[in-house]
């Protein structure tokens, strides 16, 4: 149970659930990404142990599945924190001071961009464009889009 201690939110891995899910979706055209999205959503991340199960159901090599998982930014390899703050650092937000905002938030939240805080409460990560470029800077906080963000507002929203 040591991994559980490292990641307080980690659910027990359930190989049967992954197999059932993959089997249900394998009839789709190009099923691998939808399956990985479903696993990512259901468990909060794509556990290493899910890869051989998915590979077996789809008749792929484990390396092929691994290659796809590692290619896309969205598929988490470890669980995220309780709150997820995705802050945009693309050009339109840069023009409105996103880099300074990120620095302020790193200090206030006590977590570096791209990391999860040690207590598992918050994951702070970059995103490249949320399509809210006329109301920059923007962030997606627990799935809610926010515009014209400043550090004070972002911290209040992230609920510390």
């Amino acid at each position, binding site marked *: 149970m040591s991994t559980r201690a490292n990641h307080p939110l980690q659910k027990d891995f359930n190989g049967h659930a992954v197999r059932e899910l993959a089997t249900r979706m394998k009839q*789709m055209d190009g099923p691998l990404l939808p399956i990985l999205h479903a696993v990512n959503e259901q468990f909060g991340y794509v556990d290493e142990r899910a890869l051989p199960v998915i590979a077996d159901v789809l008749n792929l090599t484990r390396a092929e599945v691994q290659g796809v998982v590692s290619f*896309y930014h969205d598929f988490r390899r470890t669980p995220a924190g309780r709150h997820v703050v995705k802050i945009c650092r693309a050009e339109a937000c840069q023009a409105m001071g996103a880099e300074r905002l990120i620095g302020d938030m790193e200090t206030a939240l006590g977590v570096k961009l791209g990391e999860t805080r040690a207590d598992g409460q918050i994951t702070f990560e970059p995103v490249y464009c949320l*399509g809210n470029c006329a109301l920059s800077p923007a962030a997606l906080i627990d799935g809610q889009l926010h515009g014209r963000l400043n550090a004070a507002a972002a911290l209040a929203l992230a609920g510390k």
Partner: protein
Amino acid sequence: MTLVITIPDDAAALSVGADEVAWAILSEISQRGLDAKLVRTGSRGLMWLEPLVEFATSEGRMGFGPVNVADVAGLFDDPAHEKSLGLVEDIPWLKSQQRLTFARCGITDPLSLADYQAHGGLEGLRRALQMAPPDIVQEVVDSGLRGRGGAGFPTGIKWRTVADTPADQKYIVCNADEGDSGTFADRMLMEGDPFLLLEGMVIAGVAVGASKGFIYIRSEYPHAISKMRRAMAAARDGGLLGPKILNSSFAFDLEIRVGAGAYICGEETSLLESLEGRRGQVRPKPPLPAIAGLFGQPTVINNVLSLAAAPTILAKGAAFYRDYGMGRSRGTMPIQLAGNVRHGGLIERAFGLSLREIIEDYGGGTFSGGPVRAAQVGGPLGAYWPPELFDTPFDYETFASKSGMIGHGGIVVFDDTVDMARQARFAMEFCALESCGKCTPCRIGSTRGAETIDRIIRGERPGENRALLRDLCEVLRDGSLCALGGLTPMPVLSALDHFPEDFDVS
């Protein structure tokens, strides 16, 4: 008579509190016992006025914005409230536009097929169903429509190639992986008028003989994904999708697929790889996707705005659409004005408007109040323009002749605090982060480019390193497989050419 009040549920409006305002409006309606209903629409695209609330009156829709919760009660008491904007249609910023693709956005209920048809929806498809498929393709060719995703390839020619390639199964793929910073027109359209995109895809399917489509939407747009899913269900119920399109003999259905945070999947062949369930690595061309695309079958792959232009072209005829624009850039372009700008949002106008008109007249200068120093046009791979070149008209060829591109139509404005060497470095860093790794110039060159710019910033042999950077940019431009590596030099070299003082630390 029932009072109709509208407020967007577009993601941008939500990002500045539209839901809270909507709840306050509902509570006000119930407290006052009014005969009124609240309709959620898309956004009109006047983003600095969001949340924009509209009251329907006999003269038209009276607007208020930007509205916050504390304003709400006052809107019911005082038509001359300090947030009053008068008739929304008469706001000069909107009135001066030529909205064809965005004609309904912000006006109709995005999920009501009845509302869509009451505002001209499905006229294009109904006319297409009366025509021979090759005539539909010809209409799109004659309209002069070019791919709105960035490359500007004639859409009708793509359709004709697919139509002329025999196959049992053909596909229509909508590239809704709009990842360029400064662009949000695809998102606004999918959230504000999703049936228009569906109608465009069905027209494409009828024209080329494809019965199946996919919309590949980037995961960074959760609201658009949800709206498109609901619109698709409503379209099936309404007979716009299914085995008999509008009771004709044509069948067409589609699936929505969600991207997974890879910018490169906006490149068409990489998107097809991703749809097939692989790493989003670029495919060499030929074969063209029009001949061997998704699952090896002939595939129309078009951007959201290209497909969404088709219903207008079919409804009003090729000549109507072609009469807008200049040179070889025909029709209208939804321009997205963003970044450090006072009045940002969506400006749909015929090609030919100058950057100065867009940034100064529409934009009203910077949000910060400082002078405009640069504008990046066309996303992260587009050039940085100095104010001296702002008289350039918005047109594919003119922009290319000045080493720039209009791309997806996004314009990001920067004030005088911008450090152009840092922006150039970011372009290389972004390329390194998002490179698919297939070709060496992009995979390795981007990292070496960022390192070289770091040396210039640190003042290490700046002359030699600037020459090295130019040389490296040439290799990326000429040696990369796709536009990511091929165009990353554009922001870098434009920064170096137009803002050399930022690269000179001495």
